[in-house]
């Protein structure tokens, strides 16, 4: 009882000193994002930035932005940023990391970028155990170009270029990136998360933090897949998109840890 009282007093003191419970992290610039209203990019972007601050590495981090909706992410992160060609972010990150291994290097990529045009770069950075962290936004569609079928579009999913629904007989099946990469020895950490609820946002934050910690400890390639929405191109309200995500995407892309080199330790 006495301990509890003391703790409460400490908390109160802390609260009096710092009455701010939540504010914008300095690892984000003041720029207004180009993302559509209700797009979950902004949440994941915030989680990455907050983790850089928490780990005290904003000043020693270099981020790589892709081609896609987050192409301009270089304006949103306050750390040094490099813009990469479509799909090439892991290769660019490799160059950055090999030149300055002491720096933290992350890429921030969408599904078309990472799992279609950049699949070779993704797999080989992973199998090399490249000591970088990849943040992978999977929203089952090409967002920036206006909603075309992506490598992760679900069977039957209607998009601009699968107007009758994705027919797996002609368009093939979606790629499950975490499952695909989990067989590679160079991979240190793989987790699929989502940011559809406040509690899942907190879990995603922890997963991203783990990715950066594994990189800090030199354990190898880490990738955090964030199952996300595209309200604009899905043609839904932001909240309805979350429900669609839960009903359709999560059964196909189950959340969880797919590889953890420290598991069992």
């Amino acid at each position, binding site marked *: 009882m006495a301990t509890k009282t003391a703790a409460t007093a400490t908390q109160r003191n802390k609260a009096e000193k710092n009455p701010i419970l939540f504010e914008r992290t300095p690892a984000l*610039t003041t720029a207004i994002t180009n993302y559509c209203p209700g797009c979950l990019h902004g949440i994941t972007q915030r989680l990455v930035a907050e983790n850089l601050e928490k780990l005290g590495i*904003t*000043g*020693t*981090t*270099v981020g*790589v932005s892709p081609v896609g909706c987050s*192409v*301009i992410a*270089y*304006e949103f*992160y*306050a*750390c*040094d*940023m*490099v*813009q*990469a*060609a479509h799909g*090439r972010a892991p*290769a*660019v*990150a*490799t*160059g*950055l*990391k*090999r*030149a*300055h291994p002491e*720096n933290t290097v992350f890429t921030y990529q969408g599904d078309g970028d990472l799992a279609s045009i950049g699949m*070779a*770069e993704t*797999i*080989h950075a992973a199998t090399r155990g490249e000591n970088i962290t990849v943040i992978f936004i999977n929203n089952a569609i090409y967002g920036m170009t206006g909603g075309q079928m992506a490598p992760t579009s679900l069977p039957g999913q209607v998009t601009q270029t699968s107007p009758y629904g994705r027919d797996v007989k002609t368009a093939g099946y979606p790629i499950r990136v975490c499952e695909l990469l989990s067989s590679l020895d160079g991979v240190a950490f793989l987790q699929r998360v989502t940011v559809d609820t406040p509690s899942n946002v907190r879990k995603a934050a922890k997963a991203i933090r783990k990715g950066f910690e594994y990189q800090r400890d030199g354990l190898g390639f880490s990738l955090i897949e964030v199952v996300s929405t595209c309200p604009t191109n899905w043609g839904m309200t932001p909240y309805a998109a979350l429900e669609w995500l839960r009903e359709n995407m999560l059964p196909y892309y189950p959340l969880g840890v797919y590889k953890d080199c420290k598991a069992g330790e």
Partner: protein
Amino acid sequence: MGEKILMKGNEALAEAAIRAGCRHFFGYPITPQTELAAYMSRHLPKLGGTYLQAESEIAAINMVYGASSAGVRVMTSSSSPGVSLKGEGISYMIGADLPGLIVNVNRGGPGLGGIQPSQSDYWMATRATGHGDGHVFVLAPSTVQEMADLARKAFDLGDRYRMPAMILADGLLGQMMEPVELPEPLDPAALPPKPWATTGTQGTREHNIINSLSLVAQILEDSVIKRYERYVLIKDVEQMAQLEYVEDAELVVVAYGAAARIARSAITAAREEGIKVGMIRPITLWPFPTKAIKNACATARAFLSVELNTGQMVDDVRLAVDGSVPVSFFGHTGGIVPTPAEVLVAIRKACAGETFHLLPYHSTLKAGE
């Protein structure tokens, strides 16, 4: 220093790059640049550097893009089909104002082509290494010594002007052995700082951004024109060419790289016949040595471009001559290297007042046909 050692061209280039402070090499296997990558794989790890065999040429050039963004001297090497694949990355490097050395040990094309010496990538190197409105330095060595010297030069030029530099060699220069005097090694840590590099803000400055995207047309135009102005300056001050017997030459042969070596033998033979022929050997293909060619127009009555292709550099010779005198062409392609005797025949024809575009297969073709 001053000691000469016998080295292969590819290896001399690799060692000179290391001595220029390059500690990072990203490549992909392709003939005939193999010795260069192999040399790097033996030596860079011992120096604390990176030799990385990428999954593709595309990945390799993007690793170069990344390492260059981080401010280090970095290179890749490849051969024609591989350089096509690198085109995307080179364009991004141009757009993001990044230095970096790309070695193209040119082989015959198009397509998979062959693996014998060729100069068929002249247009690609000087006109369109990738999409967009930009250039890279293109340096053309003609000896193993120059393979070494131009490696240093390429890094220096690239860093000074913040643009990629290409060494355009060929299998002949890459594989041949000659005595070479290697330059003094530079300490990578002692190279001029690159305050634009993305090395981490360290909390002491605004974030650096390496980027080629500009969605606002006016900003993009401004940046492209600013880069163009740099090109104008480069064209003014960085042209390099070797002049041989040009002072009294009535015919000037223009040839670079391996073709210049053969042309030189033919010119020596022609001089013995009393033909007043000289040679301009472009060392920089971009910027093209237009000044040397214009100056030679004072005495020259004709020009003859000798190339290992169907006639590419001859365009630049014509542009430089600007119609003042006739320009002929002689070449072999497909990996066939002309003999000095063949070039001598072409020299005699040009001196006799003929204007031609001579390829051995279509030996009757004339200019304009």
